[in-house]
């Protein structure tokens, strides 16, 4: 198996894509779960505000999701563009 520069670059970009998405998914997963948990707690304490609390939860999670999406974008760039 010959090892050439271009193949090493491809190998690095594949590994980089996997690491970027894999590591990048850890934080949002935990963070969004924390938001979801607190939203359940809040609805438990004050069920009348369920709508407002769900909306806040979703907005909070969307922001927390952003770093996961950055990772996804970088992974896709590494795979298809660079």
């Amino acid at each position, binding site marked *: 198996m010959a090892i050439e520069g271009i193949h090493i670059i491809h190998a690095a970009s594949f590994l980089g894509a996997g690491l970027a998405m894999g590591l990048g998914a850890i934080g949002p997963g935990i963070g969004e779960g924390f938001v*979801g948990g607190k939203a359940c707690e809040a609805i438990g304490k004050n069920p009348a505000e369920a709508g407002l609390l769900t909306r806040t939860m979703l907005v909070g999670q969307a922001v927390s*999701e952003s770093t996961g999406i950055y990772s*996804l974008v970088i992974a896709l760039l590494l795979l298809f563009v660079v």
Partner: protein
Amino acid sequence: MTIDIDSWVRVAAFAGAAFSMGLGAIGAAIGEGFAAGKANEATSRNPVYSGEIFKMMLVGQAVAETAAIFALVIAVLLLFAVGGTISMITAAGLLGAGLSMGFGAIGSGIGSGFPAGEACSGLALQPEMNRSITTTMLIGSAVSQTPAIFAMVVAFMLMFIDFSASSPHMISALLAAGMCMGFGAVGSGIGSGYPAGSACAGMARQPAMSSRLTTNMLIGAAVSQTPAIFAMVVAFILMFTNFSGLPLHPTSAAILGAGIATGMAAIGSGVGSGLVGQTSCEGIARQPLSVTPVTNIMLLAQAVSQTPAIYGLLISFILIFKKYAPADNISVSAAFFSAGLCMGLGAIGPGIGIGYTGSKATRWVARRPESTGDLTRVMLVGQAVSESTAIYSLVISLVLIFLM
């Protein structure tokens, strides 16, 4: 400098022994420390029963210690008792055995500490429940030890089954099997400890609910064990699949990726399912009337928190059973290995997050069963969002496997 195979085997055995004992000592020490801390807390609250609390602490710590003793046994065996055919496959098996036992002992050591500590607290609160708290603590800790036992079984197989006649693919298959089982036992060990701990605490708070608490503890802990069982199944498949017809590259890299995918993906789901089980035991001890809705939402939430582990299992199966064309360059191997790594790492966070959401929902269903509908809905929405990053990882893994 050339190194003969005999030296490589010894290097692998010594490295494996170091991994086994070094990593294996982490969990038991944390778990025992937690138990001792709780025992002190309990003694200060109820000094009259200090003798019983002390006894409970020692019994609980002894069970938590088991995981480290398994690791010690494997390390000593790796140092002194391994012989037989000498090949690079033997070396991989020995290193894999050390990795399996070392990582595999972490979760069980930590997990067994929870029931031990909570049993001490419970004893201070309700000394006349001594007997049933002790029984529950022992059952709970024993269940938390199961992943370490899986890891020990896999380690023994890797050390003592002679794979040296197999094809060279076995080098990466045995390493992958060891890593898969080792990583996969971490989450389930910790996760099984959570329901066991809160069942001990709940029994002291609400002695009348003892038998129901034991039931929920066992269900909760059993579901938390599932990811470790996935990891064990994949480890066995890796050990006993015949890869000989396939090209060495990229199959070797894909096999390593397959081991890492299921192993790491099991961490989050194991911990997450355990968190849900914990609040379900806590909930039925506080609100005995909510048993049915609490058990229902526990099972639902645990099922959702298993999904990241199932994605990992899916990627592993694809990587193991795919038919590979010979690779002419290193990038193909890298793509398959990276697919496994991506799915494995990416499943850790969502597994824990989904479990956390489920645990809070379960807690509040217990306190406010009339809001079960609202809570279930918001839990599922929250979990779905938390799941999204695991799905991104799955997509990237599939792209790496099928498009690159």
